[in-house]
């Protein structure tokens, strides 16, 4: 097992490491080149959250004077601090996009304090002017209306009038998506219900498959989801002959016949804006948010199962949304335990702060938060 040749090979490799290690200096950023670091919590090709960002990063690469460095599968621990510092120290990055929600506090904030000249923009909407450093900021999209349109498509496609939602955690963002999806479907047919299953975490492929199968067993014939990588849900649903509405990115390739439409992020809008500011020498905004109307969010092209009538109706509602000010959550609205949660005459457009502490499931959702 151990002979002279393998020893020599090993020694050569080790020697090369020592010799080259000294020779390799930190690569100075070339004049005029902007180095941008992207950090993803999962794989870049997850058909989901991370892919949505990576696709935008790939589009950025075509802009002149830009170098992109990317790292995938970086956990939401102090690992991400090391990755950010490594990108700054060893790659010369001056603009960082840590894209996962849990990167912000305390990790990104700590690194930002250490490197006041580096710009950090985090995906998630957590930045507050009086609390956080000025070289940091947030960008996020309102995707609830996308889920509302998903719900409409599902409402038209469903025969059993039972929809399913595979969700990660019962946090406000996710609850808003579940409620929007349900309200969209019930706008088409008020007898529709949505069965929700929480898997407990952002990436639980086995539980997601189990949840999808159990929804199929309960007679659900159309599902959507809010998990980091929708691939498993989409494939499992299509395998069980259910229709499916996508989330995060376009999953139509995974289920060409069963995919209705999907609520996708359109991050290139945000990234192009930041990069243009950076290259032009103007200060970067600290807080940007937008929805369908601002092109932060887009819908996947309709699949073959969406009827002409459905397309017309959805397009009409979408056109209404594109004008701005559309409210999905509006009174009178009851939760699924019968309590009134929004009074008649009150409407919360997607920008409303009240939506960010949502803690209920609307009437028509089968399931509970606790």
């Amino acid at each position, binding site marked *: 097992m151990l002979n002279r040749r*393998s020893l020599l090979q090993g020694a050569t*490799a*080790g020697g090369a490491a020592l010799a*080259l290690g000294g020779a390799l200096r930190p690569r100075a950023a070339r004049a005029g080149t902007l180095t941008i670091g992207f950090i993803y919590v999962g794989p870049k090709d997850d058909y989901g959250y991370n892919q949505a960002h990576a696709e935008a990063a790939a589009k950025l690469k075509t802009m002149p004077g830009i170098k992109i460095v990317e790292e995938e599968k970086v956990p*939401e621990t102090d690992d991400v601090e090391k990755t950010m510092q490594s990108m700054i120290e*060893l790659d010369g990055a001056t603009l960082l996009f840590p894209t996962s929600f849990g990167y912000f506090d*305390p990790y990104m904030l700590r690194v930002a304090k250490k490197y006041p000249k580096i710009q950090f923009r985090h995906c998630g909407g957590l930045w507050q002017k009086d609390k956080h450093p000025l070289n940091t900021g947030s960008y996020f999209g309102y995707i609830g209306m996308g889920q509302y349109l998903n719900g409409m498509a599902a409402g038209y496609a469903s025969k059993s009038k039972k929809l399913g939602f595979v969700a990660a955690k019962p946090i406000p963002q996710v609850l808003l998506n579940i409620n929007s999806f349900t309200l969209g479907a019930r706008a088409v047919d008020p007898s529709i219900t949505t069965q929700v299953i929480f898997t407990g975490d952002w990436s639980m492929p086995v539980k997601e498959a189990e949840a999808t199968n159990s929804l199929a067993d309960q007679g659900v014939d159309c599902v959507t989801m809010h998990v980091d990588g929708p691939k498993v849900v989409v494939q499992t649903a299509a395998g069980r002959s259910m229709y499916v509405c996508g989330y995060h990115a376009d999953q139509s390739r995974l289920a060409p016949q069963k995919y209705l439409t999907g609520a996708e992020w359109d991050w290139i809008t945000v990234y192009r804006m930041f990069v243009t500011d950076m290259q032009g020498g103007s200060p970067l905004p600290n807080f940007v948010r937008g929805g369908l109307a601002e092109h932060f969010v887009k819908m996947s092209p309709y699949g073959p199962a969406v009827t002409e009538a459905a397309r017309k109706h959805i397009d009409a509602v979408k056109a209404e949304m594109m004008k701005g000010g559309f409210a999905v959550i509006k009174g009178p609205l009851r939760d699924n335990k019968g309590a009134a949660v929004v009074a008649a005459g009150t409407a919360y457009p997607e920008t409303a702060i009240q939506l960010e502490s949502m803690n209920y499931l609307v009437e028509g959702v089968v399931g509970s938060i606790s």
Partner: protein
Amino acid sequence: MTAIAQLGAAAAASPSAAAADRLYPLRRALETLGAPLAALLLAAAAFAVLLAALGKSPADFCALLWKGAFGTWFSWQNTLQRAAPLLLTALCVAVPAQLGLVIIGGEGALALGGLAATVAALPLVGAWTPFVQITMAIAGFAAGGLWIGITGLLRARRGVNETVASLVLSYIGIALFNHLVEGPLRDPASLNKPSTWGIGDANMIGPVPGTELHPGLAVGVIACVLCWVLIFRTSTGFAARVTGGNLRAAQLQGLPVARLIVLACMLGGGFAGLAGMMEVAAVNGRANASLLAGYGYSGILIAFLARHNPLAIIPMAVLLGGVGAAGGLLQRRMDLPDATVVVLQGFIFIAILASETLYGRFAWFQPRGKA
């Protein structure tokens, strides 16, 4: 402890073979150093072949690995920071291993240790900082020790397989952790990332001045040295190793086998719990899913690489910390997938485990002269 005391006296009194061959301890040390080194070189060579087959330059890989792990002061700090929790979680495996136990439940003990440390600190926010920190350390150690101690008790009293028991208890521990963090102990302000209340900035353990290194590294190194002394320089440690060598013989000698098993498990689990406490007190400031970073599982790998010798854990943790530290740079510069460093770790692991068979094969390393 009388049986242990007798054993110690007997060991001290018996004329050893080493007395006749003064250079033997030196050669033995060379053997323990040489075998893993040879294995590392072999793993590097095999990995170089793999890289070449993928069309990537092994020389570039080595250069970047070096740069990312040890090439700059930043890289060194990165490596050492990653190594810090691994020192303690490796002890969770290495200490019970002296008794022949294979404990793989460090992750759960770490999580519960971190949680217990946080809970202990919460009512004390505002109190004298060292008091809070010491209370946290004790709570973390106790929770981790209790959790692995249950495994030890099941093994000692009921003969339950400790590997399976510790793994299953680890899952239960993590589920309990998640339940408490997302339920009763959740700070309502942590909307989208469930966490407990914070222990307060004043109670955080800061970095060593001038560096980014937190004292967890020093705690880990001291724990490794203390464990080495305990295992190789005390009669209790000797009794533990006798038990690990031959359980029946130890029982015949009248050694308190059951007590040793439970104690070793509690001690190991305590270290994992302490790692969790350090993660809360020096890094996260609160208990949340960030504690479940896989340190408990990496600790298993390191303990086996170190052949369960607490002193050897230190270089092995630094080595794997370095590989982890360089992983990002390799991904970014060479466009290698994230799994690359995991493959490299796998190569190292297999090579070092296989190198176990080298021990005792070469007569040159063996004692000479008449015993």
